[in-house]
């Protein structure tokens, strides 16, 4: 029995890992295609039909590029930077509930690598480590532009993590759990958290943009000012890792948005499907629904990136500390009052 669980989880982890990588790969293509669509261009269409092999071609190109090292004191940290970014980007997927349980070969298979009871804290912990990749890489590059990018990234991440955490607190107050699995299950039917926590959702959304370093918060790389920011000095696959990590974390944060606020794998009419076609079919459809939601958020990220300009450093700080954090605190107070009133009515 124990062996079966290990095999089951092993297979599951490999599959999730592969899906994350695949998504990150094809996000690069999607980004370019979507940008092209917005800008009235064609986009990549040479590698394979409709550019379908473009990510492979990009990867191959990055592999074959010269491995360049700047004149830096600490080569180890220079290499560690992208590695940390990549690792942390992939680690978060461990606690995400990809679907409800399936019944296969007479066994209940839970579609979650591990449902630890502090799943939310785990996500936060891993995300905060992510900034070290950028900081260390930027610092070890021995380049002023990189250092500036690293400084911007770290102060941005620290400020926005506060607001993000405060936004989540409301969710925790409402659901009474830190486990992502339970939060997902609790949104069954139409009880999507976004309907109960719209302000919290908006704060969380803005903060996810900041956490993933996407426009309008991409000050860390900011090609117009800092050339490439923290990855100015990187080349070859180390550069590829940074880019890949960005896309992987975009996928993960879209997933978290979908799981926390948009009902995870739940969809309207799930009970009806279950009664007609059985639980397995209903839950498999649920997995696809979750991925549809993820794709929507990924598209949203790209939509925003190709529409609006980026903030300036001080404006970013102002938005974080003077707008989002007070708003999040007010949201906590309002949520608290509502919960209190609701309890007394009951």
């Amino acid at each position, binding site marked *: 029995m124990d062996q079966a669980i290990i095999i089951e989880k092993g297979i599951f982890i490999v599959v999730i890992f592969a899906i994350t990588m695949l998504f990150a790969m094809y996000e690069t293509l999607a980004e370019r295609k979507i*940008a092209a669509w*917005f*800008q*009235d*261009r064609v986009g990549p269409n040479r590698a394979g039909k409709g550019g379908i092999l473009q990510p492979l071609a990009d990867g191959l190109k990055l592999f074959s590029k010269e491995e360049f090292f700047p004149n830096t004191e600490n080569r180890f940290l220079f290499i560690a930077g992208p590695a940390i970014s990549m690792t942390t980007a992939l680690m978060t997927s461990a606690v995400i509930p990809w679907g409800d349980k399936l019944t296969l070969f007479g066994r209940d298979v839970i579609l979650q690598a591990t449902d630890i009871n502090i799943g939310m804290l785990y996500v936060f912990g891993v995300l905060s480590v992510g900034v070290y990749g950028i900081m260390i890489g930027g610092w070890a590059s*021995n380049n*002023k*532009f990189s250092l*500036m990018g690293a400084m911007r990234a770290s102060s941005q991440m620290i400020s926005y993590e506060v607001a993000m955490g405060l936004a989540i607190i409301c969710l925790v107050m409402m659901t009474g759990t830190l486990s992502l699995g339970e939060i997902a299950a609790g949104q069954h039917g139409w009880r999507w958290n976004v309907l109960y926590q719209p302000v919290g959702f908006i704060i969380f959304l803005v903060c996810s943009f900041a956490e993933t370093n996407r*426009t*309008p918060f*991409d000050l860390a790389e*900011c*090609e*117009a*000012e800092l*050339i490439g920011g923290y990855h100015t000095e990187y080349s070859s696959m180390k550069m590829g890792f940074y880019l890949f990590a960005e896309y992987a974390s975009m996928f993960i944060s879209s997933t978290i948005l979908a799981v926390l606020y948009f009902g995870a794998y739940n969809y309207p009419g799930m009970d009806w499907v279950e009664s007609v076609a059985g639980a397995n079919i209903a839950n498999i459809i649920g997995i696809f629904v979750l991925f549809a939601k993820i794709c929507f958020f990924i598209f949203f990220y790209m939509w925003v990136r*190709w*529409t*609006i*300009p*980026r*903030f*300036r*450093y*001080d*404006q970013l700080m102002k938005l974080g500390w003077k707008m989002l954090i007070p708003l999040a605190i007010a949201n906590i107070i309002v949520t608290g009052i509502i919960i209190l009133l609701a309890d007394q009515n009951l």
Partner: protein
Amino acid sequence: MSDLLLPPEHRYAKMIEQRQNEDGSELSILNLGPTHPATHGIFQNILLMDGERIVDGEGTVGYIHRAFEKIAENRPFYQITPLTDRMNYCSSPINNMGWWMTLEKVLDIEVPKRVQYLRVIVMELARIADHIICNSVLGVDTGALTGFLYVFQYREKIYEIYEEICGARLTTNMGRIGGFERDWSPATFKKINDFLEDFPKVWQEFENLLMRNRIFMDRTIDVGPISAEKAISYGFTGPNLRAAGIDYDVRVMQPYSSYEDFEFDIPVGKSGDTYDRFCVRSAEVWESLKIIKQAMDKLPEGPFHANVPDYYLPPKEDVYNNMEALIYHFKIVMGEIPVPKTEVYHAVEGGNGELGFYLITDGSRTPFRLHFRRPCFIYYQAFNDMVRGQMLSDAIATLSSLNVIAGELDA
């Protein structure tokens, strides 16, 4: 790190030491350029930074110095035109037309009305192309790439019109003394009409994308401002001066090429900051479209060049088949033409400001002295003054809204 390379007698070295003694803060030096994505073209800014804030700056010019003024002293007039192309290469036809008008002033040539109108059309198209670049690149430098690529299609359309007129796209070398090399084809007019039809929608969309965008406004309002007095004392002209609130426009103050025939407004800003410069340029595009429309409607029939066989190149068929024409062609190109001894200043409203040609002739085949008054060179002098005390991001936005074009920086 690289501060070690700073010679101790440099003023930055003294400033760094002074600040260190004052409050212990460490200033650093940042080389913005010569090869930096925001220095479109090649020029260097050595910035003294306090974190993200600019304490002082030093601009360097000369990275693409090509000695145009000196070369011009050794070239006959027709061979100087390609040099003018390469100054503000975003609006070469204005440079070309300005040069022809200067020569016509020297040689006292009256140009037919049709030529004047055609020149107005092509100059306004060039102005639109120039403003498209400046405003959309300001978008890029603040992080919005989409608008840039979207409106750039229409710069291509303008280049196609140039192609119909003269065969070239970027460095146009368009026209002759007294007119154009050939009459404009019906295809040219069709392309212009198509452009007038399609472009306003696109430009409106582009304006909608940025002009009232909260982030864009925050990024540009009060960024890199310059007061009217200061702008005048630096010698600002064109959109950058108008953004500061002075309604000086060469097209109205000293009309050339029949600009007095057209109705148009001069958009004026208030504070001279980056946002005002953006708005002024944006409004000027609408005015240019108005002028082109009027010129197209009122375009008179007639010859496409003045009747000046001494200066206007004979038609190509004659040059190949006819000895006299070949001799004339050779003489004109090599500068064996009667030139009076004069001193002339002629200015046109370039895409970026007053583009002046100061020409002294001594009766020989080449100019005695030719000075180009290049607006970008003047703007760049004020740049460090404008960004002092601002943030690094502001410097980038200011630089791109001044539209400093490296080709005009050095001549």
